[in-house]
Structure formats: C-alpha cells, structure tokens
C-alpha cells in the first residue's frame, strides 16, 4: 500500500478511543505532558477540551490568534499528570503515536502491544474489519509443539483462550459468508483452516487455558 493510502487510514482519522488514549499527551506534537485547556468556540458557544504541552506551536496558533477562538475564553483548568497507563512513547523504540500518524509506520514489534488499544480499531478499519491473524504460523513453534520446553512459544503463537475463540468465530463467519454466496472453493479452504487451528488448539501446550 502506498504511503499516501496508509496515511489516509492512519493519519487523518481520530477515533474516540484514540482521543481518550491521547489525552495525556499533547495533541499538537504527541510528545510531552499536557496542559489541559478549555476553549470557548465563538460560533457555537460550546466549551471544547484541548490538550497541549506548554510550548506547543500548534496551541499558540490556536490560542494566540483569535481568528478561530476567543482568547478571553481560554481558561487553564488543570495540569494533567502523566501516568504510565497513558499512551506515551513505545518503550521498545521511543515511537510516539503522533509520529505513527504522521508516517503510517510503526517502530518495532513492541509498538503493536504498546499501542494495541488505539491501534486495534485503526487496523480493523484498514483491514476490512479483521482484528486477528488466522493465517500461517511460525513453523518452528508448531513443529516443536510436543516438546515440553517449547510450550511457551506455542502459546505465544496461538494466543490465549479468548483470542483463540475470536479467531474461530471470525473463521466461522467467513465460512458462513462463503457458503451463502456459493463460493465453495473458498469455503473449503476456510474449513481446512478451522480444522487445522482446532487440531493445534488440542495440543498439550494449551496448558491452563
């Protein structure tokens, strides 16, 4: 997919979940802890919440130039403390979510875990609603599945019970759609996939799940 298309998916769209997640970081640069501003919209008269860091040029643009907003209506309400639960930079590579939105590229494997809550809906949107991988699995984990020392790696590959159930449900939905639209070749492939996953789920490594 071209960068432009990726940016369409990840750059322009702001979801409610994302806004929540971003609330602890400056909405201008995404890097620094924020000052919470409430600004009155001169047209509607409504108060709108903004989250900017102290020196963000974007905030200055918004607050300092009364063309869009009434500077008299700006009230500093509180300074929000940054907590570890906020979506700050990725601990693996220092990537911020704002930077991701700018480039549509993540920085490392940990970004997927770190930004999962925010990233999940964006990925689903770009991937026709898909939320879980049901394709190929690393052979190394599968072929050594019966060796006790590899239980952990098989678990990492297959996921926990809830994730497995979601994958099965997604595959069954696909099977139903394929059958109702009489796409039998595709239905057969999906059925094979379900059987393959089921047989893997029955392996001893399922452990405590």
């Amino acid at each position, binding site marked *: *997919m*071209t960068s*432009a*298309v*990726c940016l369409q*998916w*990840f750059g322009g769209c702001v979801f409610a979940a994302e806004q929540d997640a971003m609330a602890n970081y400056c909405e201008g640069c995404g890097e620094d802890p924020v000052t919470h501003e409430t600004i009155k919209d001169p047209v509607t008269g409504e108060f709108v919440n903004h989250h900017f860091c102290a020196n963000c040029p974007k905030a200055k643009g918004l607050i300092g130039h009364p063309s869009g907003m009434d500077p008299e209506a700006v009230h500093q309400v509180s300074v929000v403390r940054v907590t570890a639960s906020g979506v700050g930079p990725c601990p*693996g*590579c220092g*990537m911020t979510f704002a930077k991701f939105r700018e*480039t*549509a*590229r*993540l*920085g*490392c*494997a940990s970004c*997927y*875990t770190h930004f*999962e809550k925010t*990233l999940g809906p*964006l*990925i689903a949107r*770009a*991937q*026709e*609603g*898909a*939320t*879980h*991988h*049901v*394709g*190929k*699995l*690393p*052979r*190394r984990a599968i072929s050594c599945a019966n060796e006790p020392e590899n239980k952990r790696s098989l678990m*990492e*590959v*297959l*996921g*926990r019970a809830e*994730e497995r159930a979601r994958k099965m449900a*997604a595959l069954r939905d*696909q099977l139903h759609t394929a059958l109702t639209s009489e*796409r039998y*070749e*595709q239905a057969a*492939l*999906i059925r*094979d*996939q379900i059987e393959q996953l089921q047989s893997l789920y029955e392996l001893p490594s399922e452990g405590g799940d």
Partner: protein
Amino acid sequence: MLPEESSFRTGEAMKRILGQTPAWLSGGGEHADVVLSSRVRLARNLAGFRFVGRAEVQERRDVFNLVRKNLTKAGIVSDDPGSGGSCWLDVSTMDQYTRDALSERQCISRQHAKGHKTSANEGPDPRAVIVQTPDEAVSIMINEEDHLRLRAVRPGLMLREALNEIGKVDDQIESVLEYAFSSRFGYLTACPTNVGTGIRVSVMMHLPALRILGEIDRVKRAASDMSLALRGFWGEGSEADGDFYQLSNQTTLGKSEELILTELAGTIVPKVIEYERRAREKLLTQRREFTEDVIYRAIGTLTHARRIAADEAMCKLSEVRLGVSLGVMSGPDIATVNRLLLMVQQAHLQHAVGRVLEPGERKAARASMLRQALSE
C-alpha cells in the same frame, strides 16, 4: 546518492544476471496472452530489532550481517559468488545504474534502489538483495521497509506455484532466524496495512484491447468493488505503462494466505482475462482494419524510428504484443517482445551500451537497439 559515474561497478554475479532475461518474461505459463506474470511477496521482520525505518544505521548493519551469516550457513545464500545459485548482492555498494537495473527487473523496489537517508559519516544505507539465479524466480530484499521482503515470481498465471515456492523459502529462513510475530496480529510489519500474513499476491496483466476500446474502467470498477488494488507496471504509484496492470490484494489480516490468493485468482483474474479476450475478439471481427493499422504502425515505429523515449517504446511494444497474440503478425515472438520491454528501460539500455548515456543520447541508442533486435 552516488554522483553520476561513467562506468559501472558490476560484480561477476550481477553481470551474469544482466546477461539473461528473467524467467517471468519468458512468455510461458497459463494464459500468457493476457497474464505476463504472477508474484507473491511476504513481509517479515526479525524479533529483537527495531523496524528498518526506526533503527539506527548500526542496527540496520547488524540485521544485514546477521541475515547474511545465517542464510549463508543454512545454504539459502551461496557463499561462492562464482558458483551461481542464490547470490547475495550488496545494494549499498552498487552504482546507481546497477541498482536501477535490479529495480527494472523487479528484483528490488524503487525505494530499495534509492535507500534510506544516511549522514555522510554513517556511510551508505546497509541493504542487500538475494537473487536466485539463473531464473530470478525468487528474490529477497534485506532492510527495505521491513527487514525481509521475500518475493517469488512466475510467468503467466501461476500464483499457487509462486506461493508454494515462497512458503518454502520462508520456512527455511524461519529455521535460522526468529521472526517478529504476535498471536493476535500475526507477522508484524512496519506498516499495519501489511500485518498478519504480510502477503501481497499480484498478477501483472496485459490489457491493450480493453484500453483501445475504452473499457479499462470496467476493470477499475471491478477491482475497486472487491477492494483490490490496480497499479502500473512498476507497482506502487506508477501509471499503466504499455497497458500493463498489476492487480493485487489490499488486506492482509484475518484471512489465510490461500484464501487471499483464491479470492484474487479464482474470481477477478479469470473475469478480467475474459473481458480482455472478448475485447480482442471484437477488435478482430468488428474493427479489423483499424486494429491492423494500430499494430503495423507500432512495429513500423519500432523498426524505423531514429529516436524513441522509453514510454513510447513500451506503448508500441504493447501494441506489437497484441498483434502477435491475435495472430495478426507472425513475428517477433512473445518472448522477444517481453525481453524488449525490459531492454528499453533506462538502466538496462545503458548497461547494454556499456556506459552512461547523456539524456540526449538515450533516445537514439534505444531506437538503434530496437531496430537491431527486431530485424534479427
């Protein structure tokens, strides 16, 4: 970027590669009249390293060295460059024209030929490509957008064969290198639009009759209805030079590789092949004189022009290819036309001449090469 050079830094392996035509241009395979080639690529990253765009030059160099060492040990890369097999080509030390030639052969992307930006004291961007010789059926880019981009390509409509081939290579690599993988998102990629399977399945189709009859929009609509991408000869962001269109999947998550392939190969591709064949039939039965005129003017231009630009050459070669497929002309054969599609490109042209050509010289050199090739 390296300054303009007057001679090429081309090693033995690269010289051998440039001396032959890749198998995907052989004109063979199923439905070869309409389908030029089938390709499957997998995007993979190594566990424990930052993705290429985020990694410092030293970290990218570490990936470069680790991949080279482990794949050589596993026999995936031949450690003797003179012996053939799969060669490791260091893209960062190549001259610009040799890199561009690899990109024209579609062994590497344009982005990989260009490389990531580095500062003067960091040296060139550490990146490589492994090319399976002599057929170029498999190539692996190292340190492009993802640590590894594996690609298999076949002539004609042979997607399943390409998927099987690349699956085997993927398994071999995975036995010596650990991939970044998550149970939820699958194979992790720098861009989330590739996450999951990391697969892109694509078919390069030659659709001159649909273009001549003004029906190419039907294909565009069908592709868009099925959320498939339609691109030009050179992939992302390129126009359809010479009526060649690449049709490929857009989504990579939530479906198996087989299903993604079947959705493309089992539904839209046969439909487009049928549209194009019907359009060709219509050209022959209802507009024969017009069609013959287009085709003979094209061969006339290619065999008589004294100066010709690459895009005009592609366009005329496309029309000649149509003429050969329709049986309007007895020669040249499809394989020759396919080979010339590559030879008219800038870097290949300059490699064939053996030196860097000034912009003003290229058109004349191209016209001369075409006259010679088509008079044989």
